[in-house]
C-alpha cells in the first residue's frame, strides 16, 4: 500500500519534470485546411438525394457532397468525406474530426449556441409521407396513430408540438423508418420534405407513396462550422453567395432535385445575397 503511493508520487514528479508547456494556438480552420491540403466534410450517407451511396459508382454522392466539393475547389484542396448521422454530427464537428458539416442540418437556435452555421443553403419544410389510400391528409389525422421518425432530428419534437396525441416511434435512420412504414408498423413518416422525396423516389414503386400535408415547420438548412471561427465562416458564406450568383448552385440543384430526376422539387426560394 505504502509502496503503491510512493510509486504514484514518483511518477507524478517525473511527469512534472518532463512536462513541457502546452500552448493552445488559435488557428483558423481556413489555415488548418489549407495547410493540410484536404477538406474533411461530414456528410450523410443514407439520405437521398443529399448524401448517399451510388450503387453504380460505389461512392458517396449527393447535393451536399457537391456543395462541399465546390468549396474544396475554391480553396484548392482535396475533399475527404466522412459519413455522419443525425445524432453524432455536431459532436464530430466540436471534436474537430470534421471541418465542415453538410448533413441536412437545420439551422436551429439551440444548435447555434454550440456551433456556428453558414447562411441558409437550402430551405425546406416538414411534411408527412404515407401510403396512397391511407386516409391521412395532414397532421390532424394522426391523432392516436403511430408516426415514424429518426432520432436526433428536429422532426420528432415538431410533430409532438403540433399533434401531442400521436405516438412517435424513433428509429436510427431514415431507411429503417421507411421500412417500418412499408410494413405497416407506422401509418406515416415525418421528416423534411426533401428527404421524403428522396425516399419516395428511390423506392421500387414510387406511386404507392404520397407526400401529404402542408409544411408544419420551416427547416432552413445550414452548413455546420466550428464555433467562433470568423475567417472560415466568412469564406464559406462568400463561396455560397458566389455559387448562387454564378448559377452553379442552380446547376447542382437541377442535377439532384431538378425536373429530370426522380426527386423533383420545384424551387420556391432565394438565397440571401450580400452585395
Amino acid at each position, binding site marked *: 500500500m505504502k509502496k503503491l503511493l510512493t510509486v*504514484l508520487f514518483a511518477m507524478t514528479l517525473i511527469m512534472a519534470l518532463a512536462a513541457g508547456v502546452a500552448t493552445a494556438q488559435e488557428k483558423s480552420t481556413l489555415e488548418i485546411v489549407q495547410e493540410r491540403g484536404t477538406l474533411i466534410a461530414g456528410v450523410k450517407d443514407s439520405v437521398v438525394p443529399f448524401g448517399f451511396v451510388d450503387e453504380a459508382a460505389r461512392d458517396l454522392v449527393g447535393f451536399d457532397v457537391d456543395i462541399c466539393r465546390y468549396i474544396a475547389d475554391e480553396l484548392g484542396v482535396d475533399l475527404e468525406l466522412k459519413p455522419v448521422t443525425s445524432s453524432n454530427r455536431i459532436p464530430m464537428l466540436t471534436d474537430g474530426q470534421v471541418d465542415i458539416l453538410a448533413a441536412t442540418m437545420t439551422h436551429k437556435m439551440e444548435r447555434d449556441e454550440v456551433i456556428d452555421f453558414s447562411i441558409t443553403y437550402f430551405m425546406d419544410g416538414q411534411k408527412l409521407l404515407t401510403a396512397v389510400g391511407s386516409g391521412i391528409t395532414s397532421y390532424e389525422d394522426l391523432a392516436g396513430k403511430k408516426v415514424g421518425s429518426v432520432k436526433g432530428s428536429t422532426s420528432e419534437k415538431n410533430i409532438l408540438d403540433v399533434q401531442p396525441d400521436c*405516438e412517435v416511434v424513433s428509429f436510427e435512420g431514415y431507411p429503417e423508418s421507411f421500412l417500418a412504414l412499408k410494413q405497416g408498423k407506422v401509418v406515416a413518416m415525418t421528416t423534411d420534405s426533401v428527404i421524403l422525396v428522396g425516399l419516395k423516389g428511390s423506392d421500387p414503386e414510387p406511386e404507392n407513396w404520397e407526400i401529404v400535408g402542408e409544411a408544419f415547420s420551416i427547416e432552413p438548412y445550414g452548413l455546420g462550422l466550428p464555433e467562433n471561427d470568423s475567417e472560415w465562416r466568412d469564406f464559406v458564406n462568400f463561396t455560397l453567395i458566389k455559387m448562387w450568383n454564378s448559377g452553379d448552385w442552380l446547376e447542382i440543384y437541377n442535377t439532384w432535385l431538378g425536373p429530370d430526376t426522380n426527386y423533383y422539387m420545384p424551387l420556391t426560394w432565394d438565397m440571401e445575397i450580400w452585395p
Partner: protein
Amino acid sequence: MNEKLQDLKIKALQFAERYKYIVYPLYYIAIIFLLYILIYQVLILRVFNVEIQYDLDYSVFLRERTEGITYLELLLTGVWTTIKISFFSIIIAMAIGTVLAVFRLSRVVILDVFAKAYIELFRNTPLLVQIFLWYYASDVFLPGFFTDWFYQQTNIEFAYGMAALATYTGAFIAEEIRAGIQSIPKQQMEASRSGGLTFIQAMRYVILPQAFRIVIPPLINQSLNLTKNSSLVMAIGVLELMASSRFIFDETFRVFEALSVATLIYMAMSLLISLAINMYNKYFLRYITY
C-alpha cells in the same frame, strides 16, 4: 508508551475489522480522492495547463421538452420501461430456459437435437441482429390477418424487444440450468425412478427444486446481463432509459449530464441485483452439502 501504541493499534484494527463494511469503502474513497488531487489538480491543471471548459448544468432536466413534460419525466418514463421490459423478459426467459434444459437432458433424441440447435443459434448471433430480425424480418413470415390486427396495437416495439431479449437470454439460461441439474448426484434420479416416479415427475418434484437453489446465482447474473442488454432495443424505437437519455443530449447537447445520470441508474439497478446475490449466497447457500 510503546505498549499503549501497540494496544491502540490492535484496537484500531479490531474496529476496522468489525465495521469493515463502512471502513473499507472509506479507504477506497480516500484513495480515489488522493488520486484525484494528484492526477487532476496537480498534473493536468498545474503542470500541463489544460482547463476543461465545460459548465455542468444539471438543471437541464427541469427544462420542458413539449407541452408539460420535462426531460426528467421523460427519463423516468424510460427507467420504468426498462424495468418493465427487463422484468417480463427475464420471466419468459427463465421459462424457456427451464424447458430447454429439460429437453437437453431427456433421452428423446429429437428434443435433445432441437434444444441444441436452438441454443447454438441464439447464443452465437449478436443480440442487435436478432432484434432487427424479429422486428423487420418477422413481417415476411406472419400471416396477413395477424399483422393487420397486430400493427394497430400500441407499443408493438416493446413486444418485439421482449421476444428478442427473452429468446436470447433463454438460450444462456438453459445451459446454466443444465449444468446445475447435472451437478445433482445421479443417485437422486436413480432413487426417484426406482421409487416409481416418471422422468418428468422426478424432474419436477426431486431434481429441479434442488437444482434451482444452486442455479439461482448464475440466473441472477443473466438477469443483470439482460438489464444491460435491454438498452439495445432502442434500435427499434422502444423509449427506454438509453433512448431517453439520447433524446436529452440530442436536443440539449448536455451529453455529460444525461449520460452520467443514465450510467448511475444502470449501475444502481445492477448493484441491487448483485446485492441480492450476495445476500442469497450468505444466507441460503451455506446449507448446501453433498
